[in-house]
């Protein structure tokens, strides 16, 4: 009996110290980020990919492609995005916003010539953005732990799953008829997105004394406000 007790105590203490070690290893300053150690490693990887490849590409794009042309390209991707947003609004039972997004898509695809011009904004139909993660959020699904995705950046368990759904449902992949077009179109979309973030870079630099911590708080704050609206 005594031996059993002793063994149990030893086992528990080993387990406890093991757990403590694990917690320390992944120890976090924020309860929403239990996997901070791993997340930080992926964050570091993403930052170096951005610094060496993506940001220089985006800067070159901004420098060499005329502003008007870039605007048309942004509008084109944004127009396909409106179609997705319309579906998400409908899933959130917000039919008024859904109709607005459909209107934007129809007007911009026709009068705006395949979406290269955002005529709808000029008519006063404002742009909105919704994704699967936000839709899940409006149904009360909580974000779950913070998750930094390789290449895709800050996310959470809920939003990461949403992201996969969004990627598969992206109309860009259904209108691209060959594999090559798909690759080129998606690459252009990534560069376009990154180039538009260049202007926010100084603001983020100024907000961030610890880039990882600043990005994480910004992510949660921004997602929360997107779901709320």
């Amino acid at each position, binding site marked *: 009996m005594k031996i059993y007790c002793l063994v149990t105590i030893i086992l528990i203490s080993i387990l406890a110290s093991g757990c403590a070690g694990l917690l320390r290893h992944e120890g976090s300053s924020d309860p929403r980020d239990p996997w901070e150690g791993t997340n930080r490693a992926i964050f570091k990887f993403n930052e170096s990919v951005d610094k060496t490849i993506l940001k220089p590409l985006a800067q070159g794009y901004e420098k060499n492609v005329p502003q008007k042309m870039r605007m048309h390209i942004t*509008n084109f991707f944004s127009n396909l995005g409106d179609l997705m947003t319309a579906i998400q609004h409908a899933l959130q039972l917000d039919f008024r916003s859904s109709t607005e997004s459909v209107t934007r898509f129809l007007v911009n695809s026709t009068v705006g010539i395949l979406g290269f011009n955002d005529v709808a904004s000029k008519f006063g139909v*404002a742009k909105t953005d919704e994704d699967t993660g936000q839709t899940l959020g409006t149904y009360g699904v909580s974000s779950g732990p913070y998750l930094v995705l390789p290449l895709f950046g800050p996310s959470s368990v809920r939003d990461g799953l949403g992201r996969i759904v969004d990627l598969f449902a992206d109309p860009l992949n259904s209108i691209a008829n060959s594999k090559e077009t798909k690759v080129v179109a998606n690459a252009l979309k990534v560069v376009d997105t990154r180039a538009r973030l260049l*202007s926010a870079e100084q*603001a983020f630099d100024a*907000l961030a*004394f*610890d880039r990882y911590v*600043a990005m994480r708080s910004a992510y949660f704050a921004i997602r929360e406000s997107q779901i709320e609206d």
Partner: protein
Amino acid sequence: MLIKLLITMLLGSVSQFATAETAKPEDVISSITQEIINEIKSKPDLASGNLGSVNQLVDKKVMPILDFEKMTSLAVGKEWRSATESQKSNLMKVFRQLLLLTYSGSIKFAEQAKVQILPPRGKQNGKNVVVKTRVSVPGRQAVPINYRMKMTEDGWKIYDLNVLGLWLVENYRVQFSQIVSSKGIDGLIKEIDDKNRNLMSKSNS
């Protein structure tokens, strides 16, 4: 009857006086954002983010409606009380520069921006309010910008603002508290100052 009339007249004039004296917080935001946008539209070097001109604009238009000491003290956190007067004034100096650099890069969007003030929702407690606005630039989803305001002796003053859901002072408080606990107040002043220099050299290149 006469007394009653007199009282009503008196009360009426008092309440009239009160409304003239204290503009509503929404009106303060609405007039100041419009003034700033007009200023940016009329001065091209402002729109291009020239730091000297932005600095002047901030002094002239923005500082008067900020409770900047409160902003800085909230960002620094509880250690603010233990800071000396000269540390406090240095903190305010570097923090002001940091905020300037945070926003000067976005000023080029202000030209096409439209600001919509959202009607206040629910009961706002008298001396502390949140004013919500939506700033829209054609072709982009409107950006929510909200202001925490406080009634002071000189009228309504802003002490925190929220862009896209992120409260500015809160953002800094979390990070500053880490720096203060490891390097003290002087360490924080130095760290902010270094950051400012770094940002300025980047924006010049």
